[in-house]
């Protein structure tokens, strides 16, 4: 926890307060889809009550590939035509993309940010499934990956000039963005993201995970380990970009659960492109609605 001046504390609190509420429907869908036995009518009910998500799902279905005889006009109809699992998957995709608002600066491309967040989410879930299944929920790791950089969204919306300056310093000096933010703003996106996650009443573990994702001196913890490893892999490989030019060759201290070097962990995950194709698809679904 950094020492904040009363003025900075007031500004950050105000910034977090101005952020929109976390969509209830998204949280509900993320929870429901952890259970393969979730009742179809409940899922349909949640999706139907979210007009943006409904619109996205119907747009994808009608855009394309099955040349269905009638235009699909409701979520129920979509379930009848394409089955519950397909709609569940699409809802999850739309939910994931839907919580990430669009914004843009010279050093920050919202599309790339979206792709980075979705890629980290996907790999964090995969790492959890392989290395921490008994200690953390892969679904929670997905959410942690999806929202770990959300503090940057807070900065972009409420302190655009200072955030742009920090992005510029990071880009020009190749400096880790969170250090540039601390220098310019006095706090970094991990700290502010945790404040927002607290406001959204996320679990303490998730709040801590977002807060600590750049902290070198925090004890290993399953969800955090998976998130940091996923974040590092995505930055090394250039899967999306979230304004941070920093590329560590190797995590400073590789959590013991991974046992081997990053490269070996990556090799063990198989063909990453298959997982990233899904992130790319979901990122495309999220574009164009304004979020």
């Amino acid at each position, binding site marked *: 926890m950094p020492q904040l001046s009363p003025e900075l504390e007031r500004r950050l609190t105000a910034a977090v307060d101005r952020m929109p509420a976390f969509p209830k429907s998204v949280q509900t869908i993320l929870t429901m889809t952890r259970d393969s036995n979730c009742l179809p009518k409940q899922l349909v009910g949640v999706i139907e009550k979210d007009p943006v998500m409904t619109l996205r799902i119907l747009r994808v279905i009608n855009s394309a590939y099955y040349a269905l005889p009638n235009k699909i006009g409701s979520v129920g109809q979509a379930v009848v*035509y394409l089955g519950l699992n*397909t709609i569940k998957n699409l809802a999850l995709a739309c939910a994931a993309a839907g919580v990430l608002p669009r914004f843009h600066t010279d050093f920050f491309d919202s599309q790339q940010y979206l792709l980075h967040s979705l890629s980290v989410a996907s790999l964090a879930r995969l790492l959890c499934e392989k290395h921490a299944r008994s200690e953390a929920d892969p679904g929670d790791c997905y959410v942690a990956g999806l929202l770990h950089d959300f503090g940057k969204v807070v900065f972009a919306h409420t302190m655009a000039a200072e955030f742009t300056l920090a992005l510029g310093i990071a880009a020009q000096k190749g400096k880790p963005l969170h250090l540039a933010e601390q220098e310019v703003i006095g706090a970094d996106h991990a700290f502010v993201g945790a404040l927002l996650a607290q406001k959204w009443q996320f679990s303490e573990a998730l709040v801590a995970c977002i807060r600590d994702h750049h902290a070198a001196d925090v004890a290993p913890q399953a969800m955090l380990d998976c998130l940091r490893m996923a974040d590092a892999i995505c930055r090394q490989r250039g899967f999306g970009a979230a304004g941070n030019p920093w590329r560590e060759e190797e995590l400073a201290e590789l959590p013991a659960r991974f046992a081997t070097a990053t490269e070996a962990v990556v090799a063990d995950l*198989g063909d990453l492109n298959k997982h990233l194709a899904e992130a790319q698809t979901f990122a495309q679904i999220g574009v164009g609605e304004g979020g």
Partner: protein
Amino acid sequence: MKVKMWGVRGSIPSPGPRTVRYGGNTTCIEVRSDADHLIILDAGTGIFPLAQSLLARLPVEANIFITHTHWDHIQGLPFFVPLHIPGNIVRIHGAFDLITQQGVEHVMNVQLQYSYFPIREAELKANVEYLTLTVGKPVRVGDATVTPILMNHPVINFGYRIECNGKSLFFTGDHEPWRNIYAPEESGWAEYQAMIEQRQAELEAAIGPVDLLIVDSAYTAAEYPKKIGWGHGTFDTGLELARRTGARRLLCTHHEPTRSDDELERVFAEALTRQTVAGCEVMLAYEGLEITL
């Protein structure tokens, strides 16, 4: 047309003394057009013995139509030996996957990785083509046409209608009749019911009165309540579909893997005591069964 069943089990291969008469391989059906063009419906483990039967007649030109990508319908694909022999042509047809945003080539890309199989897709010797199908749009295979119809399963599943010189067959792949997700007293019931009835009518119109109807009838009516949403039909729903579409012959397949041959015959006979279909010959599918249309 000639039809031969090479795999009739659902879910997982089930060899052993309890399945000798009907067979333990998963779904694979060989269809020969009148001019001897080869159409293969699904690539369950039954495709391996089918492949062996083809080796005496090289080169092979095969059109494989995948109903859906669950394991029991694709597991034999890497073992379709003509894929590994130069000079053969293998066309793989199937659906577009909305989630991965990929066509049917995805099936082979997933299976043929060194982690799962010693040969990569790029190392196949045959000339392999992938054709992603559109619902309702017929594909010509020599003197036959194959039309994909969207069915109801937890993943996109195509049923296939095959026509050749006035004869016809329809294979459902895995299909569970649509079911209202609301209870009659709930507000969404009527609207959902109307959608289901429309879909059922569309399906029956697309199937038409075929010479041979091959249906997924994995469960008994008594077992079904515990399997709702798994995406499979029962003997009773298969018989019902044959009656409603005016099929001339019904073949029940996708046998439950834990059911022995004796049990299979017993539950099938039971179902036939509840309903029969006038003018329709009804049988259980078994490995090696050949039907000429």
